[in-house]
C-alpha cells in the first residue's frame, strides 16, 4: 500500500497536504482499494464552511457509498473539476490527479494533530 512520507493522514483514510494555510485533501490508496471502482464523486461546494470531522461530500463506488469527512476546520476554496467526468482518478492516482478539494484552514493547529505516515501505516496494518 502506497503511503507517501510527506503527507499527513486522518483515521478516516484521507490524506492531507499543506501549503501555507491551505490544505489539499483526497482519499488514500488504502481507501480507494477498499472502495473499489469509484463511479461518482459529489463535487464539494466552494465556499462551504466546515468543522473538523463534518461529513461534507460522498464518493460512490460499484460496491457502496462512502462519506468524506473534513480533516480540519475551514472553508472549501476549490474542488477538483476533473472528478465530474473522471471519478476513476481516485483509483488511478489517489495522491495526485484524484485530489478532491482544497480547504482554507481556520485553525492550523489541527493540521499538527493529524497522523504522520508512520502512524497511518500502523493504523492500516493494525
Amino acid at each position, binding site marked *: 500500500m502506497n503511503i507517501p512520507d510527506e503527507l499527513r493522514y486522518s483515521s478516516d483514510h484521507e490524506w492531507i497536504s499543506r501549503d501555507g494555510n491551505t490544505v489539499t485533501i483526497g482519499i488514500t490508496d488504502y481507501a480507494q*482499494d477498499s472502495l*473499489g*471502482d469509484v*463511479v*461518482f464523486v459529489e463535487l464539494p461546494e466552494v465556499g462551504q464552511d466546515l468543522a473538523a470531522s463534518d461529513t461534507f461530500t*460522498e464518493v*460512490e463506488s*460499484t*460496491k457502496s457509498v462512502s462519506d468524506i469527512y473534513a480533516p480540519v476546520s475551514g472553508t472549501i476554496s476549490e474542488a477538483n473539476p476533473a472528478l465530474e467526468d473522471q471519478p476513476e482518478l481516485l483509483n488511478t492516482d489517489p495522491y495526485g490527479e484524484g485530489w478532491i478539494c482544497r480547504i482554507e484552514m481556520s485553525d492550523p493547529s489541527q493540521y499538527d494533530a493529524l497522523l504522520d505516515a508512520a502512524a497511518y501505516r500502523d493504523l492500516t496494518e493494525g
Partner: protein
Amino acid sequence: MTARQSPLVAQHRALDAQFVDFGGWEMPISYPTGTIAEHMACRTSATAFDVSHLGSIRVEGDDAFARLQSTLTNDLGKVSPGRAQYTHLLDADDGSVRDDIIVWWHPRADDEPDVFDVMPNASNTERVVDALGGVDSTASRAVIAVQGPDARAIVATVFPEAGAVGRFRVAHCTWESTPCTVGGTGYTGEPGLEIAVPADAAGPLWDALMVAGITPAGLGARDTLRLEAGLPLHGHELGPGITPLQAGLNWVVAWDKPSFVGRDAAVAERERGVTRHLVGIATEGRRPAREGSVVRVDGDDVGVVSSGNFSPVLGHGIAMAFVPPEIGIGRPVTVDVRGKELDGSVVEMPFVPK
C-alpha cells in the same frame, strides 16, 4: 459460522482477489483490474466467474421428473434430457418466490433413468433440498461460469467439447480425462457456459482458462452485469412477499400445469391482478440509486428501488424498482438517493440490449 470456501480459493489468492462474504461463502468480489474493467471484458470478450457458491442438488431416479414437475413452477415437459431450464420454487401459502433455480437435465440414453442437477442460490440450498429431496453435492465440485461474446471460442481452445455446448444445452464433457458437466447457461446477458468440474480438477482447469486469455471477474461485475441485463437477484427482485408475476416473470410459471407448490396463491394473484410490478429506471448522471431508494411520480412516493448501480456500458445510473402496475415505460420519475433527487424515467429492460 466460518464462511465456506470455493475449491478455487488458492487461484483467487494467487490472482490477488478481494473477497466478500456472500450467502455464507467467502468469494472474490473483484480482482486488481477492478469491477468496471471486468464488466467491460465480459461485454467485449470473455470473463470467468467462480460460481461454486451456487448449490448443486442431485435429484435422480424413476420419480425424479415427477418430483420436480409437481414442485417447481416451470413445465419440465417443455424440455428434455440434455437441456437446462430456469424455474421457481414458490411458498405454498402466499406464492412468493422462495428460490429461483436453474435445472440441468443431464443427457441420457432412452433406457437410462433421469438425472437432474438443481442449482439454487447459495443461501437457499437447504430449503430446496427440503422441498425436492435429493443429495447436496455442492462440496464435490466447482462451477466456473465463462461468459462473453468470445466465451465459447476461447473455451474451445482448451476444452473443445465444452466450447461446442449450445445455449441452454447440458452436456457431459471430458477435460484431460476429468468428467465435467457443462451447461450453456449464465447470468450476465452474454452468451456463455457454466462448467461443473470435480473439486480436485478445478484449479488446473481455471488456470488453463486464464492462460487462454480469459479475464477473471468477481461478484461485483457479476452484479453490475446482471443488472444491465435486467436479471433478478433473489433477496432483491425475488424473495419473501415477491411473486413471479410482480417480478414480471409470468413466463416462468406453467399456468396450465395441474399442480406445483404455491399454485393456488399464484392463480389467485393472476385473477385479481398484481398490486405492484418490477420496472427498470434509467437515471440521469453517474450517481447511482441504491436498494431502498424511494421512487416518486409527481412528488408522491410510489415505490422502492430493489437494486441500483452505475451502468458501465451506458455511463449513467440504472435501477430496478417495484411500483404500481399503472406506472409503465416512459413515465418520468424521480429517485431519492439519501436526500438528493435524481431525475429518471421508466425504461425497457434489459437496459443494455443484446
